[in-house]
């Protein structure tokens, strides 16, 4: 609630928030940290590992690339192993790290309940988990604050609906991904709590429609069906677990001639979604995760741990609400891309 009220106070502050994305305009949740470039030479002679999420996913690839970039800048050797969203593969990665004698590793394997097995199979060295808890071996946790990230866009949507429609809407479609378990619950629950913090507790109620369609293709297919079941709805809130879901939702709505009926918010603000956020009038908000800068937390803090320095347990990203008006300020590279 504290977060919500501070956010509300900045009614016209979206641009300012974006301009100071890496600072503390948004209320800082406990454990949120500033990005910190790796010091050149600080990793010389050190071998670190990364168990990746999946390089076939834009987010996972951005995280990998940023960690590779920072490891190179620090002079550390990076051993990368892609879990491909599979815990068994991650287990194999951990065994490989043991063989390759990594001195510390970042772990982005997707199945938290398999973390103990992965920890046991890997070398007994400092571990920083990324986005997903890796008990019992994680020395620190970095990454998204999923519940808070959902709230950020939920609040932005709520504020929009309050100012434009006095919080009146016909349906609240939630494009989820049950395959990612707790992350799904936290993020999608965050949307709802954020929205209701503006439009009132229980305001979503039975208007909630949950659909297992977190990715582009299922969202494209299932949103058409969902809109067909809502023929008279002209104010439909759509939230998705990532940007792809919203891209699919808008494509579906356009295909059935109802793009103006949906008002959406996504998660990620990844480069592939920048131009859509800028050019789609009803893309109301998006939460930035900055995967392209994860290495600026993961690598320097892992090197600190390997050198025996104390590091806070929570190393969370500062999420920022993005919309068409602040996009270019937060992501200057978007200007050239979407001009």
């Amino acid at each position, binding site marked *: 609630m504290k977060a919500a009220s501070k956010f509300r106070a900045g009614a016209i502050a979206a641009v300012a928030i974006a301009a100071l994305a890496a600072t503390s305009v948004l209320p800082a949740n406990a454990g949120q940290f500033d990005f910190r470039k790796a010091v050149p030479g600080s990793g010389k002679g050190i071998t670190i590992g990364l168990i*990746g999420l999946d*390089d*076939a996913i834009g987010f996972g690839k951005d995280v990998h690339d940023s960690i590779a970039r920072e490891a190179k800048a620090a002079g550390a050797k990076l*051993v*990368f*192993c*892609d879990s*491909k*969203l*599979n*815990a*068994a593969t991650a*287990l*194999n*990665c951990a*065994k*490989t790290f*043991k*063989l*390759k004698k990594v001195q510390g590793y970042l772990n982005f394997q*997707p*199945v*938290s*309940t*398999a973390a*103990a*097995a*992965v920890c*046991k199979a890997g070398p007994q060295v400092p571990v920083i988990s990324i986005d997903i808890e890796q008990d019992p071996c994680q020395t620190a946790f970095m990454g998204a604050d999923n519940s808070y990230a959902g709230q950020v866009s939920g609040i932005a949507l709520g504020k929009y609906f309050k100012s434009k429609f006095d919080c009146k809407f016909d349906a609240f479609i939630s494009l989820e991904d*049950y*395959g990612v*378990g*707790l992350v*799904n619950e936290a993020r999608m629950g965050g949307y709802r709590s954020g929205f209701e913090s503006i439009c009132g507790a229980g305001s979503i109620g039975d208007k909630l429609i949950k659909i297992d369609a977190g990715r582009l293709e299922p969202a494209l297919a299932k949103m058409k069906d969902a809109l067909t079941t809502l023929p008279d709805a002209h104010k439909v809130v759509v939230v998705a677990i990532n940007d792809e879901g919203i891209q699919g939702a808008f494509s579906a709505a356009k295909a059935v001639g109802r793009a103006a009926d949906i008002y959406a918010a996504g998660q990620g603000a990844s480069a592939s979604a920048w131009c859509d956020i800028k050019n789609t009038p009803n893309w109301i908000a998006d939460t930035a995760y900055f995967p392209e800068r994860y290495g600026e937390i993961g690598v320097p803090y892992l090197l600190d741990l390997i050198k025996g320095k104390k590091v806070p347990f929570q190393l969370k990203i500062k999420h920022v609400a993005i919309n068409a008006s602040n996009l270019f300020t937060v992501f200057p590279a978007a200007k050239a891309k979407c001009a």
Partner: protein
Amino acid sequence: MVKLKSGSTAQGGEDGAKKRRKIPDSAPLVGVLLFMMVLFSITSEYFFQIDNFKNVLANAAVTGIVCIPSTFLIISGQIDLSVGSAAAVSGMLLAQVVNHHGVVLGLLSVLIFGLILGCFNGFIVTVIGVNALITTLGGLGFLYGVALLIGNGQTLGMKNFDWLGTAQPIDIPLPILIFTVLAIIGSITLRFTKFGRSIYAIGSNPNAARVVGIRSNRVMFMTFILSSVAAALAGAVLASQLSSGDPNSGLGLELQVVTAIVLGGASLAGGRGTILGTVLGLLIVGVLNNGLILMDVPTFWQRIAQGLMLIVAVSFDSIRAKLNNTRS
């Protein structure tokens, strides 16, 4: 007989030449495997280590457990694409039951699940007469939904049951031992039992098999049961390795299984294949995956290599078939 042998010198000479020319079917596979091992030993200092070989075999074992009865199925001209999702359901079921009712009931539930699924697949294919590809493709989607349903979309942690996946009697991981035993039993069954010969006969010519009195439907029904029980066992081993049931854990397992079996010389058209070939195919895929990781090959190239492996495997199958037709 003796007269024929001694009397037909030319024939005898030709036989001898054929024998000399006859190279075991598995020889090219052994060659490829050895070549890859030498290559990876040279390119990665970590490859030629006992611990790494254990890793390769332990990883291959889960797929291998499914491969044995799947080889039976493919030889008989059938296929089971539901094995990956079946393994996922098995892992989820095991985690759920072990956490609430203990290990014994957990393993029992997995076994019963495998039996029921096998009977279901067998019934649909042999009694209703639906194509196995369609039946098990439907099963793949259906069972994935069941796996998600069991955990309500979440993975399930599992306590106090990691021995099946991680124990090392005689310093060898238990999954490797299970796979080895199954491979030996499978090989003996195929080569020396009536059941095994029936599988070859059905795959070679189902009509002829029926005419000579082989109860094709019964044999295929049994084979589907074996396939599903093995998939359930593999899911249990995997869940035990991870101390966790994961609805996504078996995704793609069916493709790995088909790749290994076809690469090992089994024909998708049925009638041909061996357990030895499947084991070699499995090892080639396992060594390739392991070697690429050890060499730090970018993940996209790893996927390309794995995809190419499947294409090569199926191409081998076609080339072999053409060569056989030419010779005959």
